[in-house]
Protein backbone atom coordinates (compact mmCIF):
# COMPACT_ATOMS: atom_id res chain seq x y z
CA UNK A 1 0.00 0.00 0.00
CA UNK A 2 1.30 3.43 -0.91
CA UNK A 3 2.17 5.66 1.97
CA UNK A 4 0.16 8.83 2.41
CA UNK A 5 1.60 11.91 4.07
CA UNK A 6 0.33 15.37 4.79
CA UNK A 7 2.78 18.10 3.84
CA UNK A 8 2.12 21.65 5.02
CA UNK A 9 2.84 24.13 2.21
CA UNK A 10 3.20 27.77 3.20
CA UNK A 11 2.20 30.25 4.50
CA UNK A 12 5.89 31.18 4.23
CA UNK A 13 7.43 29.57 1.16
CA UNK A 14 10.05 30.84 -1.33
CA UNK A 15 7.70 30.53 -4.30
CA UNK A 16 4.73 32.21 -2.62
CA UNK A 17 4.66 36.00 -3.03
CA UNK A 18 2.03 36.21 -0.27
CA UNK A 19 1.00 33.97 2.63
CA UNK A 20 -1.44 31.18 1.89
CA UNK A 21 -1.38 27.76 3.46
CA UNK A 22 -2.17 24.40 1.88
CA UNK A 23 -2.28 21.04 3.58
CA UNK A 24 -1.19 18.69 0.80
CA UNK A 25 -2.13 15.04 1.05
CA UNK A 26 0.53 13.29 -1.02
CA UNK A 27 1.13 9.73 -2.14
CA UNK A 28 4.47 8.95 -3.80
CA UNK A 29 5.09 12.63 -4.67
CA UNK A 30 1.62 12.93 -6.24
CA UNK A 31 -0.96 15.27 -4.75
CA UNK A 32 -4.15 13.50 -3.71
CA UNK A 33 -5.87 16.45 -2.10
CA UNK A 34 -5.15 20.06 -1.18
CA UNK A 35 -6.88 21.84 1.70
CA UNK A 36 -6.36 25.62 1.71
CA UNK A 37 -6.50 28.06 4.58
CA UNK A 38 -6.15 31.81 4.45
CA UNK A 39 -6.44 34.69 6.89
CA UNK A 40 -2.80 35.16 7.84
CA UNK A 41 -2.87 38.81 6.78
CA UNK A 42 -6.59 39.46 7.16
CA UNK A 43 -7.14 43.18 7.78
CA UNK A 44 -10.90 43.48 8.15
CA UNK A 45 -11.06 46.37 5.68
CA UNK A 46 -14.72 45.63 4.94
CA UNK A 47 -15.60 46.30 8.56
CA UNK A 48 -14.03 49.78 8.38
CA UNK A 49 -17.38 51.01 7.03
CA UNK A 50 -18.29 51.61 10.67
CA UNK A 51 -15.44 54.09 11.10
CA UNK A 52 -15.02 55.74 7.68
CA UNK A 53 -17.65 57.56 5.64
CA UNK A 54 -18.55 56.47 2.13
CA UNK A 55 -16.13 58.96 0.49
CA UNK A 56 -13.23 57.85 2.65
CA UNK A 57 -14.00 54.23 1.78
CA UNK A 58 -12.70 54.92 -1.75
CA UNK A 59 -9.22 55.17 -0.24
CA UNK A 60 -9.81 52.10 1.91
CA UNK A 61 -10.89 49.95 -1.04
CA UNK A 62 -7.87 51.14 -3.06
CA UNK A 63 -5.73 49.69 -0.32
CA UNK A 64 -7.31 46.24 -0.48
CA UNK A 65 -4.41 45.34 -2.75
CA UNK A 66 -1.36 47.02 -4.26
CA UNK A 67 -1.66 45.37 -7.66
CA UNK A 68 -5.43 45.56 -8.27
CA UNK A 69 -5.71 48.87 -6.42
CA UNK A 70 -7.26 50.91 -9.21
CA UNK A 71 -9.91 48.27 -9.93
CA UNK A 72 -10.99 48.07 -6.31
CA UNK A 73 -11.47 51.83 -6.03
CA UNK A 74 -13.26 51.83 -9.37
CA UNK A 75 -15.61 48.94 -8.50
CA UNK A 76 -16.54 50.53 -5.20
CA UNK A 77 -17.20 53.93 -6.85
CA UNK A 78 -19.37 52.25 -9.51
CA UNK A 79 -21.47 50.60 -6.78
CA UNK A 80 -22.00 53.86 -4.85
CA UNK A 81 -22.68 55.77 -8.09
CA UNK A 82 -25.25 53.13 -8.99
CA UNK A 83 -27.01 53.56 -5.63
CA UNK A 84 -26.96 57.37 -5.88
CA UNK A 85 -27.95 57.30 -9.57
CA UNK A 86 -24.97 59.44 -10.57
CA UNK A 87 -24.18 59.84 -14.26
CA UNK A 88 -20.39 59.85 -14.54
CA UNK A 89 -19.09 62.26 -17.26
CA UNK A 90 -17.92 60.55 -20.45
CA UNK A 91 -14.31 61.74 -20.16
CA UNK A 92 -14.07 60.27 -16.68
CA UNK A 93 -15.34 56.93 -18.02
CA UNK A 94 -12.61 56.92 -20.68
CA UNK A 95 -9.89 57.96 -18.22
CA UNK A 96 -10.96 55.20 -15.87
CA UNK A 97 -10.78 52.71 -18.74
CA UNK A 98 -7.27 53.83 -19.71
CA UNK A 99 -5.96 53.57 -16.14
CA UNK A 100 -7.72 50.24 -15.65
CA UNK A 101 -6.06 48.77 -18.75
CA UNK A 102 -2.66 50.13 -17.72
CA UNK A 103 -3.22 48.37 -14.39
CA UNK A 104 -4.09 45.14 -16.19
CA UNK A 105 -0.90 45.41 -18.23
CA UNK A 106 1.38 45.90 -15.25
CA UNK A 107 -0.41 43.16 -13.32
CA UNK A 108 0.03 40.67 -16.18
CA UNK A 109 3.71 41.62 -16.57
CA UNK A 110 4.15 41.10 -12.85
CA UNK A 111 2.59 37.66 -13.20
CA UNK A 112 4.71 36.73 -16.22
CA UNK A 113 7.81 37.64 -14.21
CA UNK A 114 6.70 35.59 -11.22
CA UNK A 115 5.90 32.65 -13.49
CA UNK A 116 9.38 32.87 -15.07
CA UNK A 117 10.88 32.98 -11.58
CA UNK A 118 8.69 29.99 -10.63
CA UNK A 119 10.11 27.81 -13.38
CA UNK A 120 13.65 29.04 -12.69
CA UNK A 121 14.24 31.45 -15.59
CA UNK A 122 15.56 34.45 -13.69
CA UNK A 123 16.67 36.46 -16.70
CA UNK A 124 13.16 36.27 -18.14
CA UNK A 125 11.77 37.36 -14.77
CA UNK A 126 13.98 40.47 -14.87
CA UNK A 127 12.98 41.21 -18.46
CA UNK A 128 9.27 41.14 -17.58
CA UNK A 129 9.67 43.38 -14.58
CA UNK A 130 11.96 45.74 -16.50
CA UNK A 131 9.25 46.21 -19.14
CA UNK A 132 6.65 46.63 -16.37
CA UNK A 133 8.63 49.59 -15.02
CA UNK A 134 7.79 51.55 -18.18
CA UNK A 135 4.07 51.17 -17.43
CA UNK A 136 4.60 52.20 -13.81
CA UNK A 137 6.50 55.29 -15.00
CA UNK A 138 3.51 56.33 -17.13
CA UNK A 139 1.13 55.66 -14.24
CA UNK A 140 3.32 57.81 -12.04
CA UNK A 141 3.33 60.57 -14.67
CA UNK A 142 -0.47 60.56 -15.12
CA UNK A 143 -1.64 59.87 -11.56
CA UNK A 144 1.26 60.65 -9.25
CA UNK A 145 1.32 57.08 -7.93
CA UNK A 146 2.97 53.89 -9.15
CA UNK A 147 0.54 51.30 -7.79
CA UNK A 148 -1.99 53.18 -5.65
CA UNK A 149 -3.22 56.05 -7.80
CA UNK A 150 -6.07 57.60 -5.80
CA UNK A 151 -7.60 59.13 -8.92
CA UNK A 152 -11.10 57.72 -8.46
CA UNK A 153 -13.76 59.52 -6.52
CA UNK A 154 -17.49 59.12 -6.26
CA UNK A 155 -18.84 60.76 -9.43
CA UNK A 156 -15.71 60.63 -11.59
CA UNK A 157 -11.96 61.13 -11.42
CA UNK A 158 -9.64 63.66 -9.79
CA UNK A 159 -6.98 63.96 -12.50
CA UNK A 160 -6.90 64.45 -16.24
CA UNK A 161 -4.65 63.11 -18.97
CA UNK A 162 -3.19 66.04 -20.89
CA UNK A 163 -2.26 65.82 -24.60
CA UNK A 164 1.43 65.60 -23.59
CA UNK A 165 0.66 62.71 -21.26
CA UNK A 166 -1.32 60.99 -24.03
CA UNK A 167 1.78 61.18 -26.25
CA UNK A 168 3.90 59.68 -23.46
CA UNK A 169 1.39 56.84 -23.04
CA UNK A 170 1.34 56.20 -26.77
CA UNK A 171 5.15 56.07 -26.97
CA UNK A 172 5.27 53.73 -23.99
CA UNK A 173 2.70 51.42 -25.63
CA UNK A 174 4.77 51.23 -28.82
CA UNK A 175 7.89 50.38 -26.86
CA UNK A 176 6.16 47.81 -24.62
CA UNK A 177 4.47 46.10 -27.57
CA UNK A 178 7.85 45.71 -29.31
CA UNK A 179 9.60 44.38 -26.21
CA UNK A 180 6.76 42.01 -25.38
CA UNK A 181 6.91 40.61 -28.91
CA UNK A 182 10.58 39.88 -28.31
CA UNK A 183 9.92 37.77 -25.19
CA UNK A 184 6.73 36.02 -26.33
CA UNK A 185 8.64 33.27 -28.21
CA UNK A 186 10.45 32.37 -24.99
CA UNK A 187 7.18 31.79 -23.14
CA UNK A 188 5.38 30.14 -26.04
CA UNK A 189 8.07 28.24 -27.96
CA UNK A 190 11.06 27.53 -25.72
CA UNK A 191 11.30 23.78 -25.14
CA UNK A 192 12.32 23.95 -21.48
CA UNK A 193 9.58 26.46 -20.67
CA UNK A 194 6.95 24.41 -22.50
CA UNK A 195 8.04 21.32 -20.57
CA UNK A 196 7.03 23.10 -17.36
CA UNK A 197 3.72 24.45 -18.71
CA UNK A 198 2.19 22.21 -21.36
CA UNK A 199 -0.22 19.65 -19.92
CA UNK A 200 0.49 20.79 -16.34
CA UNK A 201 -2.49 21.51 -14.09
CA UNK A 202 -5.19 20.81 -16.67
CA UNK A 203 -8.70 22.05 -15.87
CA UNK A 204 -11.41 21.21 -18.40
CA UNK A 205 -14.09 23.69 -19.45
CA UNK A 206 -16.73 21.68 -17.58
CA UNK A 207 -14.62 21.59 -14.41
CA UNK A 208 -13.91 25.32 -14.62
CA UNK A 209 -17.64 26.03 -14.88
CA UNK A 210 -18.56 23.55 -12.13
CA UNK A 211 -15.98 25.11 -9.81
CA UNK A 212 -17.03 28.72 -10.50
CA UNK A 213 -13.63 29.83 -11.81
CA UNK A 214 -13.04 33.37 -13.02
CA UNK A 215 -10.81 35.47 -15.22
CA UNK A 216 -7.84 34.29 -17.29
CA UNK A 217 -7.86 31.04 -15.26
CA UNK A 218 -11.38 30.25 -16.57
CA UNK A 219 -10.74 31.66 -20.05
CA UNK A 220 -7.70 29.38 -20.41
CA UNK A 221 -10.15 26.48 -20.03
CA UNK A 222 -12.28 27.80 -22.87
CA UNK A 223 -14.92 29.69 -20.87
CA UNK A 224 -15.80 32.78 -22.85
CA UNK A 225 -16.54 35.23 -20.08
CA UNK A 226 -15.16 38.70 -19.49
CA UNK A 227 -17.01 41.22 -17.34
CA UNK A 228 -15.77 44.09 -19.52
CA UNK A 229 -18.42 42.89 -21.96
CA UNK A 230 -21.01 44.27 -19.51
CA UNK A 231 -19.94 47.60 -21.00
CA UNK A 232 -19.19 49.59 -17.84
CA UNK A 233 -16.92 52.68 -18.09
CA UNK A 234 -16.01 53.16 -21.79
CA UNK A 235 -15.87 49.47 -22.71
CA UNK A 236 -19.19 49.56 -24.57
CA UNK A 237 -17.64 52.00 -27.08
CA UNK A 238 -14.45 50.00 -27.59
CA UNK A 239 -13.79 47.02 -29.82
CA UNK A 240 -12.27 43.92 -28.23
CA UNK A 241 -12.77 40.17 -28.22
CA UNK A 242 -12.65 37.75 -25.33
CA UNK A 243 -9.35 35.86 -25.40
CA UNK A 244 -9.62 32.17 -24.61
CA UNK A 245 -7.60 29.00 -24.90
CA UNK A 246 -8.87 25.44 -25.08
CA UNK A 247 -5.85 23.74 -23.56
CA UNK A 248 -6.91 24.34 -19.94
CA UNK A 249 -3.31 23.95 -18.77
CA UNK A 250 -0.62 26.30 -17.44
CA UNK A 251 0.50 27.02 -21.02
CA UNK A 252 -3.05 28.19 -21.88
CA UNK A 253 -3.10 30.50 -18.85
CA UNK A 254 0.16 32.03 -20.02
CA UNK A 255 -1.17 32.38 -23.58
CA UNK A 256 -4.35 34.17 -22.41
CA UNK A 257 -2.51 36.68 -20.22
CA UNK A 258 0.12 37.50 -22.87
CA UNK A 259 -2.59 38.17 -25.43
CA UNK A 260 -4.55 40.24 -22.93
CA UNK A 261 -1.54 42.57 -22.67
CA UNK A 262 -1.62 43.10 -26.44
CA UNK A 263 -5.38 43.57 -26.17
CA UNK A 264 -4.99 46.20 -23.42
CA UNK A 265 -2.57 48.12 -25.65
CA UNK A 266 -5.21 48.18 -28.39
CA UNK A 267 -7.98 49.20 -25.97
CA UNK A 268 -5.90 52.08 -24.56
CA UNK A 269 -5.08 53.30 -28.07
CA UNK A 270 -8.78 53.25 -28.97
CA UNK A 271 -9.71 55.11 -25.78
CA UNK A 272 -7.01 57.76 -26.30
CA UNK A 273 -8.29 58.31 -29.82
CA UNK A 274 -11.87 58.84 -28.67
CA UNK A 275 -11.27 60.77 -25.43
CA UNK A 276 -14.35 63.03 -25.06
CA UNK A 277 -14.08 66.62 -23.90
CA UNK A 278 -16.31 66.80 -20.81
CA UNK A 279 -16.07 67.47 -17.09
CA UNK A 280 -14.02 65.08 -14.95
CA UNK A 281 -16.63 64.47 -12.25
CA UNK A 282 -20.31 64.90 -11.52
CA UNK A 283 -21.51 66.90 -8.51
CA UNK A 284 -22.43 64.55 -5.67
CA UNK A 285 -25.01 65.59 -3.08
CA UNK A 286 -26.30 63.76 -0.04
CA UNK A 287 -25.60 60.26 1.21
CA UNK A 288 -26.26 56.93 -0.51
CA UNK A 289 -29.32 54.88 0.41
CA UNK A 290 -29.95 51.47 -1.10
CA UNK A 291 -27.82 48.58 -2.26
CA UNK A 292 -25.93 47.53 -5.34
CA UNK A 293 -23.94 44.60 -6.70
CA UNK A 294 -21.37 45.60 -9.32
CA UNK A 295 -19.21 43.21 -11.31
CA UNK A 296 -16.01 44.23 -13.03
CA UNK A 297 -13.11 42.43 -14.70
CA UNK A 298 -9.99 42.77 -12.59
CA UNK A 299 -6.68 41.50 -14.04
CA UNK A 300 -7.31 38.24 -12.15
CA UNK A 301 -10.96 37.94 -13.13
CA UNK A 302 -14.48 38.80 -12.07
CA UNK A 303 -14.60 40.93 -8.91
CA UNK A 304 -17.88 41.72 -7.19
CA UNK A 305 -18.59 44.78 -5.07
CA UNK A 306 -21.61 44.82 -2.80
CA UNK A 307 -22.52 48.07 -1.08
CA UNK A 308 -25.48 48.53 1.22
CA UNK A 309 -26.17 52.06 2.43
CA UNK A 310 -28.70 53.44 4.90
CA UNK A 311 -28.76 57.15 4.02
CA UNK A 312 -26.10 58.08 6.58
CA UNK A 313 -22.43 58.78 5.72
CA UNK A 314 -21.54 55.32 7.05
CA UNK A 315 -22.37 52.25 5.00
CA UNK A 316 -24.11 49.22 6.46
CA UNK A 317 -21.93 46.83 4.51
CA UNK A 318 -19.22 46.83 1.89
CA UNK A 319 -18.18 43.50 0.52
CA UNK A 320 -15.57 42.59 -2.09
CA UNK A 321 -15.56 39.13 -3.64
CA UNK A 322 -12.16 38.84 -5.24
CA UNK A 323 -11.25 36.60 -8.19
CA UNK A 324 -8.63 34.72 -6.19
CA UNK A 325 -11.32 33.66 -3.71
CA UNK A 326 -13.39 32.33 -6.64
CA UNK A 327 -10.39 30.47 -8.04
CA UNK A 328 -9.41 28.64 -4.83
CA UNK A 329 -11.69 25.69 -5.66
CA UNK A 330 -10.20 25.46 -9.16
CA UNK A 331 -6.69 25.59 -7.75
CA UNK A 332 -7.39 22.67 -5.41
CA UNK A 333 -8.73 20.68 -8.38
CA UNK A 334 -5.70 21.38 -10.59
CA UNK A 335 -3.42 20.27 -7.78
CA UNK A 336 -5.03 16.82 -7.63
CA UNK A 337 -2.77 14.37 -9.41
CA UNK A 338 0.01 16.93 -9.89
CA UNK A 339 3.63 16.30 -9.00
CA UNK A 340 4.73 17.82 -5.71
CA UNK A 341 7.43 19.71 -7.65
CA UNK A 342 4.76 21.53 -9.69
CA UNK A 343 2.77 22.82 -6.70
CA UNK A 344 4.48 26.20 -6.57
CA UNK A 345 4.03 26.76 -10.29
CA UNK A 346 0.38 25.71 -10.20
CA UNK A 347 -0.39 28.10 -7.38
CA UNK A 348 1.19 30.85 -9.48
CA UNK A 349 -0.88 29.99 -12.55
CA UNK A 350 -4.11 31.19 -10.90
CA UNK A 351 -2.24 34.47 -10.28
CA UNK A 352 -3.20 34.42 -6.60
CA UNK A 353 -3.67 37.76 -4.91
CA UNK A 354 -3.84 36.99 -1.23
CA UNK A 355 -3.98 40.68 -0.25
CA UNK A 356 -7.24 40.94 -2.21
CA UNK A 357 -8.58 37.78 -0.64
CA UNK A 358 -7.60 38.99 2.86
CA UNK A 359 -9.38 42.31 2.46
Amino acid at each position, binding site marked *: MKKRSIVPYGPQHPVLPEPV*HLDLVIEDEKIIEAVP*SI*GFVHRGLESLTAKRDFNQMVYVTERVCGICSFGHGFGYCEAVEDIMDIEVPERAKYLRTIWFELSRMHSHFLWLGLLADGFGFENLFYQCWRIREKILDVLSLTTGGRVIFSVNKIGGVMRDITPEMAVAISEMLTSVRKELKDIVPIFMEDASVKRRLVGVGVLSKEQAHELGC*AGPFARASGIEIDMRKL*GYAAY*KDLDFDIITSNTGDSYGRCYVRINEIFQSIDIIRQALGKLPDTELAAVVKGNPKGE*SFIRIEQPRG*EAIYYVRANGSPHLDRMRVRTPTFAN*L*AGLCETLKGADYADVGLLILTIDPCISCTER
Partner: protein
Amino acid sequence: MSEEKNISENTGIDDNKAAKNKCVIEEIDHRDLLKKAIEMKRQGYRLSQACAAYAEGKLELSYSFADDNNYGYTTLRLVIDKETEIISLTEIIPYAAFYENEMKELFGVNIHMIEPDYKNKLYRITKETPFIPKEAE
Protein backbone atom coordinates in the same frame (compact mmCIF):
# COMPACT_ATOMS: atom_id res chain seq x y z
CA MET B 1 -36.59 50.63 -30.44
CA SER B 2 -35.78 47.57 -32.50
CA GLU B 3 -33.54 44.91 -31.06
CA GLU B 4 -30.79 45.66 -33.64
CA LYS B 5 -30.51 49.25 -32.46
CA ASN B 6 -29.78 48.10 -28.93
CA ILE B 7 -26.62 46.33 -30.01
CA SER B 8 -23.47 48.40 -30.29
CA GLU B 9 -22.03 48.08 -33.80
CA ASN B 10 -18.47 48.02 -32.50
CA THR B 11 -18.61 45.59 -29.67
CA GLY B 12 -21.76 43.52 -29.85
CA ILE B 13 -22.60 44.61 -26.32
CA ASP B 14 -26.31 44.93 -25.60
CA ASP B 15 -26.70 48.59 -24.61
CA ASN B 16 -29.54 47.80 -22.22
CA LYS B 17 -27.32 45.37 -20.38
CA ALA B 18 -24.29 47.62 -20.64
CA ALA B 19 -26.09 50.57 -19.17
CA LYS B 20 -27.19 48.55 -16.19
CA ASN B 21 -24.66 46.02 -14.89
CA LYS B 22 -27.58 45.46 -12.51
CA CYS B 23 -28.50 42.64 -10.24
CA VAL B 24 -32.01 41.30 -9.72
CA ILE B 25 -32.60 40.65 -6.02
CA GLU B 26 -35.18 38.00 -5.20
CA GLU B 27 -36.21 37.62 -1.57
CA ILE B 28 -36.88 34.03 -0.57
CA ASP B 29 -37.69 32.07 2.56
CA HIS B 30 -34.62 30.31 3.97
CA ARG B 31 -36.41 26.95 3.63
CA ASP B 32 -36.53 27.44 -0.15
CA LEU B 33 -32.82 28.07 -0.57
CA LEU B 34 -31.80 24.58 -1.67
CA LYS B 35 -34.76 24.21 -4.03
CA LYS B 36 -34.04 27.59 -5.63
CA ALA B 37 -30.32 26.89 -5.94
CA ILE B 38 -31.04 23.57 -7.69
CA GLU B 39 -33.36 25.43 -10.06
CA MET B 40 -30.69 28.03 -10.84
CA LYS B 41 -28.05 25.38 -11.38
CA ARG B 42 -30.32 23.47 -13.76
CA GLN B 43 -30.75 26.65 -15.78
CA GLY B 44 -26.95 26.88 -16.14
CA TYR B 45 -26.35 29.63 -13.59
CA ARG B 46 -23.02 29.82 -11.75
CA LEU B 47 -22.84 30.70 -8.06
CA SER B 48 -20.61 33.75 -8.26
CA GLN B 49 -20.63 34.83 -4.64
CA ALA B 50 -22.38 34.41 -1.31
CA CYS B 51 -22.08 36.87 1.53
CA ALA B 52 -23.71 37.97 4.76
CA ALA B 53 -24.53 41.37 6.16
CA TYR B 54 -25.69 42.27 9.65
CA ALA B 55 -28.36 44.95 9.88
CA GLU B 56 -31.08 45.81 12.37
CA GLY B 57 -30.52 42.71 14.47
CA LYS B 58 -30.90 40.33 11.52
CA LEU B 59 -28.57 38.53 9.18
CA GLU B 60 -29.02 39.16 5.48
CA LEU B 61 -27.61 36.44 3.28
CA SER B 62 -27.07 37.02 -0.44
CA TYR B 63 -26.42 34.15 -2.84
CA SER B 64 -25.61 35.62 -6.26
CA PHE B 65 -25.93 33.56 -9.43
CA ALA B 66 -24.51 34.57 -12.81
CA ASP B 67 -25.91 33.63 -16.19
CA ASP B 68 -22.66 33.71 -18.16
CA ASN B 69 -24.33 33.34 -21.55
CA ASN B 70 -26.35 36.53 -21.19
CA TYR B 71 -24.39 38.27 -18.43
CA GLY B 72 -27.49 38.17 -16.24
CA TYR B 73 -27.16 38.37 -12.47
CA THR B 74 -29.64 37.27 -9.82
CA THR B 75 -29.25 37.35 -6.06
CA LEU B 76 -31.29 35.20 -3.72
CA ARG B 77 -31.80 37.14 -0.50
CA LEU B 78 -32.59 35.56 2.85
CA VAL B 79 -33.25 37.56 6.01
CA ILE B 80 -32.86 35.37 9.09
CA ASP B 81 -32.33 35.47 12.83
CA LYS B 82 -28.87 34.68 14.09
CA GLU B 83 -30.03 31.31 15.43
CA THR B 84 -31.82 30.15 12.27
CA GLU B 85 -30.25 27.10 10.70
CA ILE B 86 -29.46 27.22 6.96
CA ILE B 87 -28.85 24.17 4.83
CA SER B 88 -25.51 24.10 3.00
CA LEU B 89 -25.40 24.21 -0.80
CA THR B 90 -22.19 22.17 -0.98
CA GLU B 91 -24.00 18.99 -1.98
CA ILE B 92 -25.02 20.55 -5.28
CA ILE B 93 -22.35 23.29 -5.57
CA PRO B 94 -19.15 21.96 -3.94
CA TYR B 95 -17.20 25.24 -4.12
CA ALA B 96 -19.94 26.99 -2.09
CA ALA B 97 -17.94 25.61 0.85
CA PHE B 98 -15.55 28.57 0.69
CA TYR B 99 -18.35 31.14 0.83
CA GLU B 100 -20.27 29.25 3.49
CA ASN B 101 -17.25 28.74 5.70
CA GLU B 102 -16.51 32.44 5.36
CA MET B 103 -20.07 33.43 6.37
CA LYS B 104 -19.93 31.02 9.28
CA GLU B 105 -16.57 32.24 10.53
CA LEU B 106 -17.04 35.98 10.07
CA PHE B 107 -20.75 36.35 10.87
CA GLY B 108 -21.58 33.18 12.78
CA VAL B 109 -24.23 32.09 10.27
CA ASN B 110 -25.57 28.73 11.40
CA ILE B 111 -24.99 26.64 8.28
CA HIS B 112 -25.69 22.95 8.52
CA MET B 113 -23.77 20.20 6.68
CA ILE B 114 -21.02 22.24 5.00
CA GLU B 115 -18.66 19.85 3.26
CA PRO B 116 -15.84 20.41 4.01
CA ASP B 117 -16.46 22.32 7.22
CA TYR B 118 -13.18 24.06 8.07
CA LYS B 119 -14.36 24.51 11.65
CA ASN B 120 -13.19 28.13 11.98
CA LYS B 121 -9.87 27.38 10.26
CA LEU B 122 -10.49 28.84 6.78
CA TYR B 123 -9.49 32.21 8.19
CA ARG B 124 -6.71 31.87 10.74
CA ILE B 125 -8.06 34.62 12.96
CA THR B 126 -8.40 34.47 16.70
CA LYS B 127 -11.58 36.52 17.18
CA GLU B 128 -14.87 34.67 16.75
CA THR B 129 -17.47 36.20 14.40
CA PRO B 130 -15.57 39.50 14.04
CA PHE B 131 -18.20 41.07 11.75
CA ILE B 132 -20.99 40.89 14.33
CA PRO B 133 -21.20 44.01 16.53
CA LYS B 134 -20.38 43.45 20.21
CA GLU B 135 -23.87 44.38 21.41
CA ALA B 136 -25.41 41.69 19.19
CA GLU B 137 -23.25 38.83 20.42
